[in-house]
């Protein structure tokens, strides 16, 4: 049997608006903190994983900045789901004996930079979509939401429950960007951005960075933190541009989810806590269905009346999510950080999911374009 891999350290950098940080210093500060939690140092890191659009090669740019020369580099960029994919790749490298310790890092200063949607020519396949002016990514998710509502009769009120529960969790998280409670009516009354998505159906635009450290199990005796074991992983892509998505109501989660769960030998009812990328409220409904937690068209009912909120029977997005906690462009690394903390039992009171032993972490990238799923268990 191949050796196991576990998450042994996690950390965020400063979040929100961080004009005092660059994408590199964000990743450095988060990496220092995550390694310190593990009781490891940069000399222990032999695999480096990062994703971003801030360098022609983010992995080697970050390695240089950190002053390390790792023997394993992975700059896989599949959007916000990159970091769950990095976990899968790191686990494979650890199992194969290629590396012992992997550092996964991310940073973004998009809020400070106001960097989205800068003018640039429409190249390659973009030239058939971008000239129509659909605001991206929200417009693509709005197209999916309208089709989903048409097929299943799901309402904006049902979708809004996702944002309300996220905010209820955020109220318990001092690091969350927005913490004041909201109601379904507040979501529906917020500015219409792209029908049927209102402003409060949309994720935040923040700065922020994060880091996750994985180690092979023979290193766990040296590690300061309680390891969280990676039990399964899966990733896939269905399309790049939204016009090429085969079915706007089914995401790649229908493949990456079962792959991860089969590898872990677990089923839907086994999970104590679930962290699902919430770029938009619709993203969560589609993902719950594609993962198989409920049948097509039933996700609106599944999330009703605070079932996914604090104290609910299906704790989900327990940090407040991309909707209320933070969303620096590619959010996936923060899903891993939160799931790890829940499984270690880092929190007190209502912020902590009781007896959290098994977590599902699911990233979505691009315009529902890529998905990656990780199953984590208490070590």
């Amino acid at each position, binding site marked *: 049997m191949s050796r196991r891999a576990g998450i042994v350290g996690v950390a965020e950098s400063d979040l929100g608006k961080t004009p005092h940080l660059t994408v590199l210093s964000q990743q450095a500060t988060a990496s220092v903190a995550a390694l310190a939690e593990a009781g490891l140092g940069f000399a222990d890191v032999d695999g480096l994983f990062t994703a971003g659009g801030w360098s022609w090669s983010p992995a080697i740019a970050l390695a240089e900045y950190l002053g390390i020369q790792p023997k394993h580099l992975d700059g896989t960029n599949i959007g916000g789901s990159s970091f769950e994919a990095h976990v899968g790749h790191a686990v494979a490298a650890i199992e194969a004996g290629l590396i012992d310790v992997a550092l996964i890092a991310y940073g973004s200063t998009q809020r400070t930079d106001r960097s989205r949607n800068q003018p640039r020519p429409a190249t390659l396949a973009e030239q*058939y979509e971008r000239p129509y*002016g659909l605001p991206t990514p929200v417009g693509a998710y709005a197209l999916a939401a*309208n089709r989903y509502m048409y097929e299943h009769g799901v309402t904006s009120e049902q979708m809004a429950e996702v944002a309300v529960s996220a905010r209820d969790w955020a109220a318990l998280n001092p690091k969350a960007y927005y913490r004041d409670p909201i109601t379904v009516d507040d979501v529906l009354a917020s500015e219409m951005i792209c029908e049927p998505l209102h402003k409060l159906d949309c994720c935040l635009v923040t700065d922020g960075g994060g880091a996750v450290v994985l180690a092979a199990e023979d290193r766990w005796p040296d590690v300061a933190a309680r390891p969280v074991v990676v039990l399964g992983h899966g990733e896939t892509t269905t399309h790049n541009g939204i016009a090429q998505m085969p079915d706007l109501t089914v995401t790649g989660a229908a493949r990456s989810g079962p792959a991860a769960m089969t590898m872990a030998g677990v089923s839907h009812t086994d999970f104590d806590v679930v962290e699902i990328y919430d770029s938009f409220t619709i993203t969560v409904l589609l993902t719950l269905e594609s993962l198989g937690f409920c049948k097509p068209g039933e996700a609106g009912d599944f999330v009703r009346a605070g079932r996914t909120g604090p104290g609910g029977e299906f704790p989900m997005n327990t940090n407040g999510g991309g909707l209320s906690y933070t969303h620096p462009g590619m959010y996936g690394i923060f899903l891993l950080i939160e799931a790890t903390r829940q499984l270690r039992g880092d929190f007190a009171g209502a912020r902590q999911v009781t007896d959290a032993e098994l977590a599902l972490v699911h990233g979505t990238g691009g315009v529902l374009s890529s998905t990656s799923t990780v199953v984590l268990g208490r070590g």
Partner: protein
Amino acid sequence: MEIAVDTESREFWDGVAAGELRIQRCEACGHAVFYPRALCPSCHCDRLVWIVASGRGEVYSYTVAHRAFGEFATEAPFTVALVDLDEGVRMLTRIVGGTVAIGDRVELEFATAAGNQLPCFRPVA
């Protein structure tokens, strides 16, 4: 918006200038192909020929953008749709000359967005 026309897209944009919606069809498997490319994404052969689409289709989904960015900001609100052409391909487009619902029939009409002439669609009366 500047469009970086390339060797694969030139025939499409030449068609737009000539008032035609040009797509590809695979001679081996018969699949219609859009956007244009060098191999059939269905059977992966390279025997693709250009055809002129009928310009008729059906709305698969749509959204009204109330906010838009850059040079599109002043055009909002506008309707962007995914239209399934009768030939069997889906394209992103704009709806002009009326409102639509999912499942509505639409037909080709050229219109301008951010300075570019583009294939758009109008509701069929």
